[in-house]
């Protein structure tokens, strides 16, 4: 038996997981390279226009290196990648590293706030429903969560924009972008408030549907836990209902829910792809979307590698958290 957290075992466990991730990431990247290049397409197709002579486009293909055979392109890409060079984006005329460096923090910010909403709201609503099982609150929330869960994120986003710009316009919530026009003139606190305001709508749009899913899940877990013997025991001891629910039931019900975190991370990035376009959020989702349509290979390759890495790291964190909330789990 070893300590539940910390210590050399934990480090060894994380190290082992990291090593396992390497072949996984190589597989992801190779697969994406193949899928991208096997799909029909031409990165100069976005400049399809009779006023641009074919010779210019040929010149661009040479500059991009897509005139080379596939295996040459792959070896080139891997070599450059290993030396930390992601190459130049075809469409942004900048190094891919810079393009992603600008966008990634924005996506992580939006993803982070959405995770808070997903699990915060989800767990709260689910628990409330379980406690009030079959009551009017439960029924109402069941209807609302099922409704939200079945709504596509982009539609929810557009509806939020519509409402925020018309009947709720007195709230003054910005409907697009990440900062206001006068952002650079604001003080530090003003800047934070500005971004926070811009986060409200996209966070709701990105998080609400998943939060509804978590709520359904949480409700089920909670109902199961509430019927356990130890809850009856806690009640029999005369503990106040509040303590019974929050300390004994909630913590135990959370255990399986935490493992959802690993599942929601990739979903979150996938959802960001749509939500970022709807809300003009300058993040990775939009880069990927435009990059895929334009066959901006270096950009899409680097971005998919990062998404892959984030998902791997995310599921590792979920596993660690899982063990943290459940004392029965050990890193052996």
């Amino acid at each position, binding site marked *: 038996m070893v300590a539940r957290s910390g210590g050399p075992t934990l480090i060894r466990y994380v190290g082992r997981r990291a090593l396992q991730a390497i072949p996984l990431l190589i597989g992801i990247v190779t697969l994406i390279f193949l899928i991208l290049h096997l799909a029909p*397409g031409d990165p100069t197709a976005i400049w399809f*226009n009779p006023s641009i*002579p074919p010779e*210019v486009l040929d010149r661009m293909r040479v500059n991009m290196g897509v005139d080379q055979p596939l295996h040459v392109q792959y070896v080139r890409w891997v070599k450059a990648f290993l030396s930390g060079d992601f190459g130049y984006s075809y469409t942004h*005329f*900048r190094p891919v590293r810079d393009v992603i460096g600008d966008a990634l923090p924005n996506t992580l910010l939006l993803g982070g706030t959405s995770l808070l909403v997903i699990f915060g709201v989800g767990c709260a609503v689910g628990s409330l429903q379980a406690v009030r099982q079959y009551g009017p609150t439960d029924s109402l929330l069941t209807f609302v969560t099922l409704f939200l869960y079945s709504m596509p994120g982009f539609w929810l986003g557009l509806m939020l924009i519509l409402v*925020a*710009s018309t009947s709720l316009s007195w709230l003054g919530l910005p409907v*697009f972008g990440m900062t206001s026009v006068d952002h650079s003139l604001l003080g530090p606190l003003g800047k934070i408030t500005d971004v926070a305001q811009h986060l409200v709508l996209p966070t709701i749009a990105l998080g609400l549907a998943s939060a509804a899913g978590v709520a359904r899940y949480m409700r089920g877990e909670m109902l199961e836990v509430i019927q356990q013997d130890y809850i009856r025991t806690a009640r029999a001891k005369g503990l106040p209902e509040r303590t019974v629910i929050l300390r004994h039931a909630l913590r135990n019900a959370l255990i399986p829910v935490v493992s959802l975190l690993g599942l929601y991370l990739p979903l979150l990035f996938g959802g960001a792809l749509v939500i970022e376009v709807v809300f003009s959020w300058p993040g990775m989702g939009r880069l990927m979307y435009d990059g895929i349509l334009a066959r901006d290979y270096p950009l899409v390759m680097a971005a998919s590698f990062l998404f892959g890495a984030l998902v791997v790291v995310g599921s590792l964190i979920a596993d660690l958290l899982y063990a943290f909330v459940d004392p029965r789990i050990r890193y052996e």
Partner: protein
Amino acid sequence: MSWPSALMSATLPALFLAACDAGPPRGADTGSGADSLSAAETERLAVETYRAAVVTADSIAHEANSESSRYGGTIVVAGRNDVLTLNPLVATDIESVQHQAHVLFTTLVRSGPDFEPLPYLAREWTMDPEGDRITFHLRDDVYWHDGVPVTARDVAFTWERVVDPQVPFFNPAYFDAWEAVEVLDDQTVRFTVRPRSNLLYGWAVTAIIPEHILGDVPPSELADHPFGTVSPVGSGPFRFVERVPGDRWVFEANPDFPEALGGRPYADRLVYRQIPEDAVADAALRTGEIDLIVDANPASAQRLSADSTLVVASFPAAEYALIAWNTRRDPFTDPSVRRALTLAMDRESIVDVVRGPYGSVSSGPVGPWHWTYDSAWEPFPYAPDSARALLDQHGWTDEDGDGVRENRGVPLRFELYFTPRQAWMDVATIVQANLADVGVAVEPMAREQASLVPLVTSPDRRFDAFLVSWARDVPLDDRDLWACDRVDDPMQFTGWCQPELDAVLDSMQFVSNRESLRRLTHRYETLVAEAQPYTFLYNVETVLARRAGLRGVTADARGTWASVTEWWLDPEARR
């Protein structure tokens, strides 16, 4: 939009000065061949410039009080696409080009309403009597935003780079008649040229780049140089402030911009923001987060125009939509079939559905945006009966009664490719219904652009028909589309060509007389109309939607941004 009224709405004393100082383009009209204006043309210009000056002076008297109140505020403009680079050597899309030419940089000349060259950075130019050398005399009061003067060296450097084969400059044809350059002094530069119509047009859309910043950069690295994306230094009416990629470009007024060229713009700041989703741009316009949408969706424009706090305007864009037929494949090898298909399409309805009031039926490759356009010419009406008769005549009849015509057992059925845009899906639906009426079966096929383009441009041309729109350019150089000696080149995908048209298209690039050019253009349109390798669908109008408090926005085919220095915000509309 005529030139005098553009000036009237401007009512800028600066422009009054410009008119007097610069005068009509002297020298370009000495009848020496390439690109010279006719004597009558020059006279007309001189008279108009004079009238504009008088009218402007008159308006100044009336509006002297309000003039100073126009300065100030931040104008926020939204467009569907990001401006990806402000490097004039990589002009990839219309918003980038417009920002380069009108906002951040200056061009050597600028275009009048009929795309005739007018003085700008060059205060005048002279053509040698032989017509093979043109000398530009530059202004001496234009500075790069880092304080270095703009000189003849910069002009020569710009030309050297745009013609450099290592630089992927998108429009090399602008300069293919320009052969050598010689810098005579800081304000004088001389080029050796060959005769060419629209000789100076390239200089009206290609911004001058700074030699003192980019001179040492190897030409092959210029396209990806951070100058275009991170730290551009221009010489135009606005200075670069910051860029947040995927979100915005911020510019501020250049107080040192010469009075003669318009002086300091009214707005303190100009912000361009990317909003990819049309509905979101509409909402942002209503809430006042933005002042102007540069390419509004025609469907939402009609809703926006009902809002009294907004103004919707439009101008003819250099763009038309078409269906290209693969004339290498049956049944499109037969021009009668192609003509019948055009006759069977209700193009008025297509315009109504797709563009609403912001478009018109197109009959040929030249639209209302171009000075050679003839609005009376409309060779193909909507005539399903004629289409049926024509198909009957040429052996296409519905023998088995399944609603689709056959000829020797082969049904009249084809695939129509397009990219998955709402407009194209609407067009495809109407076309499918129209053609079903006359016994032709259409299978609409949506493909994203990156996979559709190789289908039509690759040597085996794996398509029947496809739906696309072309952005046009003033020189109307369409030889890549039609020339017989280019049938195997990527852009000649219809495979149709004709020797007379080849001659006409060649001549169009070399005549200098505007009337001859007009006649040649009409001949070009007639020849294409007879053969119908394309079915021309509609001409596009660019829709601008703005808050009523944003004023001075006058736009025509030269582009939305051509008047940017004259835009101003009502004091109460400022944020």
